[in-house]
């Protein structure tokens, strides 16, 4: 199925969870936070399955003033 990660289209397996997506992208869950359709999904809910056309944002620390 197709999901949008940072506005880019990605093909992912049907029913993939948020945690599985992060592992697939080789991102450390402890240093990332995830929003789906502009809503934060807490780490405890990363077993939630994504749905087609979900918009995923993965945020991480960055320099800031």
């Amino acid at each position, binding site marked *: 199925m197709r999901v949008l990660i940072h506005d880019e289209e990605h093909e992912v397996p049907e029913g993939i969870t948020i945690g599985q997506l992060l592992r697939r992208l080789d991102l450390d869950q402890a240093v990332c936070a995830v929003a789906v359709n502009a*809503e*934060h999904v807490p780490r405890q809910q990363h077993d939630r399955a994504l749905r087609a056309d979900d918009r995923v944002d993965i*945020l991480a620390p960055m320099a*800031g003033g």
Partner: protein
Amino acid sequence: MEDVDTWTVGGRTLHSRLLIGSARYPSPANMREAIQACGAEVITVSLRRENPRERAGQAFWSYVRDLGLHVLPNTAGCESVEEVLTVARMAREIFETDWLKLEVIGDDETLQPDPFLLVRAAEALLAEGFVVWPYMTDDVVLAERLVALGCDVLMPWGAPIGSGQGIRDEARLRRLRQRFPAAALLVDAGIGAPSHAARAMELGCDGVLLNTAIARAADPVGMAVAFRDAVRAGRRGWLAGLMAPLERGEASSPMVGLPFWHQEER
């Protein structure tokens, strides 16, 4: 004096009154060295989309985490209450802190914070238990609203972000200090020189948050030390009590016992 002049902000006791940003340094190593040199205990960071191919965020965090500082995440880039809440919740999860520098820009030219959005976002964040550090103008009415909502910290600008103009209106800062003696008052933005930071402290501010003035200096580490010393000097000046300025000159040497050549004039 440094040892005993601690202060409490956001539920934590700090020794340093200089808070530092993490952006715009020549290199990560230079950032670390400058931050350690200035003695800051609080560092501001932002949250951005992580590109899995670059993993820049994870690399950045590895540089900052080991410094062992209190992290103050900001909401830079947010344009609505909903965006602020989402980023705030994500920041709380990553950094395990309720602290949040609330930054919502209302004008692209001056980067002036949006006072209306600021109040609405602060109210929503406080309801979720965040300790809100609002980046604001030096408007006393706005400060009144934020304090009434429950903000214990006020962070007025001295001048627009990154401008280095210093404190453009001392009277307004002085008024904020007088009106809100219990609030932690920090100048955030516009500081360009160590003397600006010292002045903010002389006016009774509890601290100074700055970034560009150190990061963009020819020698960021040297400038970090200069700011550290300036903040301490200004703080000492405030505690010692500045003399009131006079309109006219007043001789500092005593008039009694003037030498003989003045005796005929008296």
